[in-house]
């Protein structure tokens, strides 16, 4: 197991290197500069600015600088927000995004699996149709529309939740729901179909022939086997939650990392682009690793390559 994880860590480093390189060249290819949106200033000032941030060096020196920065996890000062380092920006806003993301993931997994199990248990009966309708609506209604609707009805009209801002747990419920529902719909669909598949399998029939009740059969036997496709979805889910949170953070005025991720690109804020990209990449690469490890936890037949018992 340790050997396997070590091997995967090496792959993660290789992937990171490729991501950094690709990001660097894309960044350089895009026209404009971090200072282009400022008022017109004399070329001497621009030269000075470029010199200060090392933008006057040839590309290979800059590339090397970025690599060194990344390895030392010090991405340098933001080119847009004077006096703020990229690390500060991340460490300030990431905990907020993380809270929101974890809440959204718990909600989408919990809600999705619950809906899927109910739909499968009452196959082709009313609860199935209800759960499937909710799932399809969740998948097809974009999160920003849902966010607006929830803000209007649940927050503004019924006054159940605050409309926007980030001052406590209450503030996180609506945005987390808005992110979660699309994914919950997918998970519900996945769970339903794989539960139905399991319901026809011999070992579920065997569990029933043991005299176990309906719910014990589901919880002890079929659900665990039915979860494999859901586990597979966890990787894309993490990516979706992380990147999807940008829109939701905008709508609910949440000072999260998603905003910096996107605005840094329009601002050509090179250091922040690199910082957030590397940071998100690390999270996603580790999420994929966790998913792969989860497989072998859920299904003992799956042995990780290079793992020793």
């Amino acid at each position, binding site marked *: 197991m340790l050997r396997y994880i070590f091997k995967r860590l090496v792959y993660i480093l290789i992937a990171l290197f490729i991501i950094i390189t690709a990001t660097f060249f894309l960044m350089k290819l895009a026209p404009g500069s971090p200072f282009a949106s400022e008022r017109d200033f004399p070329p001497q000032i621009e030269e000075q600015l470029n010199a200060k941030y090392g933008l006057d060096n040839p590309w290979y020196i800059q590339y090397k600088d970025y690599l060194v920065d990344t390895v030392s996890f010090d991405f340098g000062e933001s080119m847009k927000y004077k006096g703020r380092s990229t690390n500060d920006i991340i460490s300030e806003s990431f905990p907020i995004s993380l809270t929101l993301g974890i809440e959204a993931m718990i909600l989408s997994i919990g809600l999705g699996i619950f809906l899927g199990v109910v739909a499968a248990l009452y196959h082709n009966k009313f609860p199935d149709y209800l759960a499937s309708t909710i799932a399809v609506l969740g998948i097809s209604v974009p999160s920003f529309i849902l966010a607006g609707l929830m803000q209007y009805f649940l927050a503004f009209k019924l006054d159940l939740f605050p409309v926007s801002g980030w001052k406590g747990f209450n503030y996180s419920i609506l945005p987390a729901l808005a992110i979660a529902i699309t994914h919950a719909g997918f998970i519900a669909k996945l769970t339903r179909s794989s539960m139905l598949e399991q319901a026809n399998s011999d070992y579920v029939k*065997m569990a*029933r022939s*043991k*005299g*176990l009740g309906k719910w014990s059969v589901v919880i002890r*036997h079929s659900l665990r086997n039915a979860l494999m496709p859901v586990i597979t979805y966890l990787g894309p889910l993490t990516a979706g939650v992380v990147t999807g949170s940008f829109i939701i953070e905008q709508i609910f005025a949440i000072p999260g990392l998603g905003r910096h991720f996107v605005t840094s690109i329009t601002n050509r804020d090179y250091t922040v682009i690199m910082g957030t990209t590397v940071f998100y990449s690390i999270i996603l690469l580790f999420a994929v690793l966790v998913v792969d490890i989860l497989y072998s936890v859920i299904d*003992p037949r799956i042995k990780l390559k290079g793992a020793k018992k």
Partner: protein
Amino acid sequence: MKKKLLEVNDLKINFKTYAGIVQAVRGVSFELFEGETLAIVGESGSGKSVTSNAIMKLIPQPPGLYAGGEIKLEGRNLIPLTEKQMSKVRGNDIAMIFQDPMTALNPTMRIGRQITEVILKHQKISASEAKDRAIKLLDLVGIPMPEKRFKQFPHEFSGGMRQRVVIAIALAADPKLLIADEPTTALDVTIQAQILELMKDIQKKRGTSIIFITHDLGVVANVADRVAVMYAGQIVEYGTVNDIFYNPKHPYTWGLLGSMPDLKNNVKEELRTIPGSPPDLIHPPKGDAFAPRNEYAMAIDYEEEPPMFQVSETHFAKTWLLHPDAPAIEVPESISRRIEGYLKEAQGNG
């Protein structure tokens, strides 16, 4: 006189499909005494598995439907019972051994837990007592190193070993009736013999009644006390093993016997097959369902369904050939030669 354990009367099971209503079981009746083995024989689609699932009420409803009849376990009719009442019967009074041990065990659960969960469900004992019993059961079904095996997953067992585990699970709550749905079909021949030996051994030790579903007459001769031959959702011949093997009356049973390879009795002809295929049970044929495949079919076979004729006290067959007015038809020569062989062998064994 042995006690009657199970009585099935005129059981009818239908399945609703898009094409129409399939009458999978059309009036099956039999009884089973304590400590006895009944074999239900028939080709694929004859309704034997549906019958066995119906006894445990494992037929999904819908599309399945209990269209009539009763299933009496020790005098209590199981058909009107609710799921909850039924869950006390399943595993506890009736247990089932499935056909394919490769798929019958939950791949993500340790063997031990799959056994103890039956014990804990039906008996009020502690988890550690249940574990002791499970290990004893594993030992009983012939699994070496049961303590170590207890903690393993199904994929760490071979096919034969898995079937032993399935049998251990079936025996866990000490059921009165064991339904074995083709328990040896998925195993290779040497393992088949071991599993059959094991089941006979367990029956001797525990006095369990067994319903043995199979399409292999060779297996039947080995394990059964009585045999029911099923065709198109009905029992066409019913009797003791001796009745069926030494004095078969139904042409379908002749066909089954004739299609069994026989290396001993000098049968020098090609292996016989029964021509045609079983009838469509959405529209069961008028008259005898076997008539179109029956070389001895008479005009009445296409008109009216034959009743069960009684051949002897224990032997019944559903064919017009047994009617007093029917022409006397002898058992085909190749079959009668086999029967002579069986008889000689039986005498030889004492």
